C-alpha cells in the first residue's frame, strides 16, 4: 500500500510540476496572483471608471480613494489620499485634509487641484461614472452643490441640505491626475493604457491575453513596508480552472462560487482555505400593488410558510447564513440589530406551515372553486410565478423550495426561470408577481433602506431592483431623513431600530438568507490572510471592496516559497 501511495504522490507531483513548471520565469520578484474577474482574454484597458472590467483591476490597487471605510470595523477606517475629514456643525459641508507629499506614479505631485479637477470633470462628463452625487437644481436631486479648494491640501465639498452621511459617497471617489485626464475629451472611451495613479501597484508589465502584472509604483509612500513587488492577474474562466489554479499554486487569492467546498476544494491542497462571511441579504420582492401581495396577512403567511432551514442547508448548499429578523437586511448589519425590540417579529422567520395555513384561512384565502388551490377572498384564483435568472442555480433551488412550501399550504406558486436579460428587463415595468433579489451592502444600512424605500424608484417604468415591492412607507422616509440630519450615533441606531420595526410590521420584502461573500486563499506563498479569527477587513478581492488593498498590503511572503 505504501508503495502505491508513493507512486500516486509522484504522479501528483508531476502534475503539479506540469501545472506551474517553467510557466513563471522567476526573477526574484514577490508576486501576488489574484483574479478579480473571469474573462476569456485580457484587453489593454485600465480606465478606473469603466465598470465593464478594468475597474476591477485598477481601482484600489492602483487608484486610491480619499478614504477607505472599514466595513467590518467602522471605528478603524483607513485614511487614504485624505488623512482626515470634518463634517461642519451645520452638516452642510465636508472638508478633506489631503495627505502631503503624495506623488503620482509619473512623479507629479498629488494636490487639491487634482480633486477639484476630478469633481469638475465629472460635472462636465455626466456620461463618465466618477460617482460624485451632483446636486441637480432642475430635478432637486443629488447632494453636492460645489467644491472649494481651501489650500493645496484641503478641499471642502458643499451640500444642498444638512447631511451627516454624504461623506460615505464622497470618500470613496478615486481622484484622477489632472495633468493626464485634462486632455482626455471622451473619458468613457479612454483606455488609459499608461496608467498613472498613486496606489501601491501602478506599472502595467508583461501584458498578454493570458495574463498581465501591475507592479510597484516607484513613488508609493509605503514602498518600504510593502513586500509585494507585483500583482499578477492571470486570465481564467470557469470555477474548476480557478479552484485548480489555487490548488497548484497559480493563484493566491480568488472569489469564486463553490459547491461542497469541503469535498471539492479544501482536500485538494493543504494550503487551500476559504471563508464565506455573510454578504448582503437575499430577499423576495413581492409586488404589493397586486393581489394577493397587497394584503399584509398574505405576506405574513407566506413568510411563515417558507422552510428557511432547508433552503439554507439544501437549496443553497449550506453556504449561506441565516437571517434573524424579517427586516430586509441580515447578518451583514448585525451590529445595528436591537435584539430586544426585534424579538417579537422573530416568529415570521420561523417555519410554521400550520400557522401559515391558519392565517390564510382566517383572512379568507380558501379554495372556493374546488381546484385544490386557495383563492382570493373575492373568489378570483391565486396563481403567480416567482422569477429568477436561469443560471443562478442557488436561487433557482431556493425558489423551487419556496414554491414547494407554498404549494404545501395550498397556494399555487410557481418557479419561473428566465434568461438573465429577460429577467433584468422584466422589473423596471413594475409588472410582475415575485422576484428574488439581492440586497446591497454599504458601510451603513441607511443606504440600503434609502434604495429600498425611495419613492423615485417605485415609478412604473423606472422601478429599481431594491424597491420592487413598490410600497411607500412615509414613516420610514421621515426616519431616513432624520438619521441623515444627525451625527449622534446612538440616535441613529435608535431610529434605525424604528425602521427595522416598520419593515417587520409591513413586510414589503421577505428576508431569506445572507448570500456568502466568496473568498478563497492559499497559504502556499503568503501569510497574513483575513481569517474568521482575525477578520480585520472584508476579505473579498473583487472590485467595489475598497479594503482589498489593505488586505493585500497586510500579506507577508513566506520565505523560500516564492
Amino acid at each position, binding site marked *: 500500500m505504501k508503495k502505491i501511495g508513493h507512486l500516486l504522490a509522484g504522479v501528483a507531483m508531476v502534475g503539479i510540476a506540469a501545472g506551474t513548471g517553467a510557466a513563471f520565469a522567476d526573477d526574484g520578484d514577490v508576486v501576488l496572483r489574484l483574479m478579480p474577474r473571469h474573462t476569456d482574454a485580457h484587453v489593454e484597458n485600465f480606465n478606473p471608471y469603466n465598470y465593464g472590467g478594468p475597474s476591477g483591476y485598477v481601482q484600489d490597487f492602483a487608484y486610491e480613494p480619499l478614504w477607505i471605510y472599514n466595513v467590518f470595523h467602522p471605528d478603524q477606517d483607513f485614511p487614504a489620499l485624505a488623512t482626515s475629514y470634518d463634517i461642519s456643525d451645520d452638516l452642510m459641508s465636508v472638508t478633506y485634509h489631503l495627505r502631503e507629499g503624495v506623488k503620482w506614479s509619473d512623479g507629479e505631485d498629488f494636490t487639491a487641484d487634482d480633486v477639484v479637477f476630478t469633481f469638475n470633470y465629472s460635472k462636465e462628463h455626466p456620461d463618465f461614472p466618477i460617482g460624485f452625487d451632483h446636486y441637480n437644481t432642475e430635478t432637486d436631486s443629488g447632494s453636492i452643490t460645489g467644491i472649494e479648494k481651501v489650500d493645496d491640501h484641503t478641499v471642502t465639498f458643499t451640500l444642498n441640505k444638512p447631511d451627516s452621511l454624504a461623506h460615505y459617497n464622497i470618500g470613496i471617489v478615486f481622484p484622477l491626475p489632472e495633468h493626464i485626464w485634462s486632455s482626455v475629451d471622451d473619458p468613457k472611451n479612454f483606455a488609459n493604457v499608461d496608467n498613472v495613479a498613486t496606489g501601491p501597484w501602478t506599472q502595467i508589465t508583461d501584458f498578454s491575453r493570458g495574463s498581465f502584472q501591475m507592479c510597484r509604483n516607484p513613488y508609493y509612500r509605503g514602498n518600504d513596508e510593502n513586500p509585494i513587488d507585483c500583482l499578477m492577474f492571470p486570465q481564467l474562466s470557469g470555477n474548476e480552472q480557478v479552484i485548480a489554479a489555487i490548488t497548484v499554486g497559480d493563484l493566491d487569492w480568488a472569489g469564486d462560487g463553490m459547491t461542497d467546498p469541503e469535498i471539492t476544494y479544501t482536500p485538494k491542497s493543504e494550503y487551500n482555505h476559504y471563508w464565506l462571511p455573510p454578504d448582503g441579504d437575499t430577499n423576495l420582492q413581492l409586488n404589493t400593488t397586486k393581489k394577493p401581495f397587497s394584503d399584509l396577512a398574505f405576506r405574513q403567511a407566506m413568510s411563515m410558510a417558507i422552510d428557511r432551514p432547508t433552503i439554507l442547508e439544501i437549496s443553497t448548499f449550506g453556504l449561506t447564513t441565516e437571517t434573524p429578523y424579517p427586516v430586509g437586511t441580515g447578518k451583514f448589519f448585525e451590529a445595528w440589530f436591537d435584539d430586544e425590540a426585534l424579538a417579537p417579529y422573530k416568529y415570521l422567520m420561523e417555519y410554521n406551515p400550520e400557522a401559515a395555513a391558519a392565517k390564510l384561512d382566517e383572512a379568507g384565502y380558501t379554495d372556493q372553486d374546488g381546484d385544490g388551490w386557495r383563492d382570493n377572498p373575492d373568489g378570483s384564483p391565486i396563481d403567480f410565478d416567482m422569477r429568477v435568472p436561469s*443560471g443562478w*442555480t442557488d436561487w433557482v433551488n431556493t425558489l423551487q423550495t419556496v414554491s414547494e412550501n407554498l404549494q404545501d399550504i395550498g397556494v399555487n406558486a410557481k418557479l419561473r426561470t*428566465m434568461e438573465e436579460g429577460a429577467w433584468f428587463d422584466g422589473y423596471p415595468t413594475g409588472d410582475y408577481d415575485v422576484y428574488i433579489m439581492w440586497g446591497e451592502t454599504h458601510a451603513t444600512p441607511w443606504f440600503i433602506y434609502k434604495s429600498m424605500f425611495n419613492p423615485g424608484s417605485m415609478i412604473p417604468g423606472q422601478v429599481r431592483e431594491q424597491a420592487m415591492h413598490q410600497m411607500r412607507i412615509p414613516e420610514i422616509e421621515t426616519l431616513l431623513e432624520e438619521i441623515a440630519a444627525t451625527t449622534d450615533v446612538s440616535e441613529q441606531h435608535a431610529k434605525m431600530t424604528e425602521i427595522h420595526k416598520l419593515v417587520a410590521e409591513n413586510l414589503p420584502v421577505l428576508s431569506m438568507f445572507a448570500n456568502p461573500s466568496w473568498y478563497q486563499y492559499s497559504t502556499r506563498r503568503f501569510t497574513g490572510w483575513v481569517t474568521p479569527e482575525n477578520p480585520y477587513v472584508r476579505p473579498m478581492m473583487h472590485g467595489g471592496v475598497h479594503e482589498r488593498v489593505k488586505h493585500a498590503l497586510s500579506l507577508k511572503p513566506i520565505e523560500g516559497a516564492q
Partner: protein
Amino acid sequence: MTELTEAMPPQEAVASRPATPGRKAPSRAEIAAELGIKPPPRWARGLPRGLVAFLTNKKGMAGVIILTIIVMSAVLAPMIVPHDPFRRAGGPHVAPNAEYLLGTTRVGKDVFSQLIYGGRTSLLIGFVAGLAATVIGVFVGVAAGYFGGRIDEILSFFVNVVLVLPALPLIIVIAAFVEQASPLVIGLVLAVTGWGFAARTIRTQTLALKTKEFVLAAELLGEKKWRIVLMEIFPNMLSFVVGGFVLATIFAILAEAGLEFIGLGDPGAVTWGTMLYWAQRNLALEVGAWWEVWPACIAIMVTGAALVLINFAVDEITSPQLRASRGVGRVKAFLKARGRSVDVF
C-alpha cells in the same frame, strides 16, 4: 422498396438458369438450404416483404426493442416513478438504494424518477423536432428538385438562409417572446433551423430520380405532376426519408441536451439535458455522486444507439449490398461453385 425487389432477382435468375447442362435447376428452397438462409418465420407470412425484412433484421429489431422500452417507460412514467421528479424526495446525494433506485441529486430529488420523466420530454421534443424538420425538408427538397426552375431557385435560397441561421441567439430571442426557454421552445428552434440539410439531400435525390425511366415513362404517359411526385418519386425515397427522420431525431435529442447542458434551457424543467446541467453545476462527479451523472448520460447514449441501429436496418433493407453479414460470404461461395463471377455480386 424497389431497390429491394431489384436486388432479389439475381438469385432467382441464377437459380432458374441451368448451371451445368443436364442438371436440374435447384428449387428455391434448396438454394436457401444450401446457403443457410432461413425462410421467413411462419408468423411473418402474408406481411409486406419490406416489413418482414425489417422484422427479421437483428440490428433493427434490437434498436426497436430498446427504443420501445425507453418509449414505454416514458409514456407510463406517471405509473412507474416512485417520487415526484420535480420535488425534493430525500436527503442530498443519497446513494442508490431500495427506496431511491438511482440515488438522489444534490438537492434531494429522486434520480430514477427524473430519468423516466426526463425521457418523456427529451424523446417527445426529439421526435417532434425531428419529424417537423423532416417534413419541411422533404416538402421543400422534393418541390425544389422536381419542379426545378424558378421554384428550385427560390426554395434553394431559403435552404441556404436556413443553413446559416444562428440557432443559439435564436433560442434566446424566441424564449424571450414566450419568456422561458422551455424544452418546447428549444425543440421549435431546432425544427426551424434544422431542416436545411434534409432539404438539400432530398433535393439531390429527387434530381437523380427524375432522370429514371419510370419517372420519364410516367411523364410521357401524361400523369399529373403531383401524382408523379406522390406515387413515383416519394416512395422511392422512402429510405432516405426514414433515414433522414431517424438522423434528425438523434440530432434533435442531442442538440436539446447539449443546449440545456450549457445553460440555455430552463433548469426548472426535467429533461436529460437539465439533469446533466445540474450534475455539472453541482460538481456531482467531483463529490463522488456518480449516480447523478451517469443515468442521464447512459440514457442519451442508449437512445442514440437504438436510433442508429434502426437507421442501419433501414439502410440494409433498402440496399441489401450493405448488409454486413456472413451470409454474403456464403452467397459468394455458392455462386463461385456455380461458376459465376463473384465480383459482380
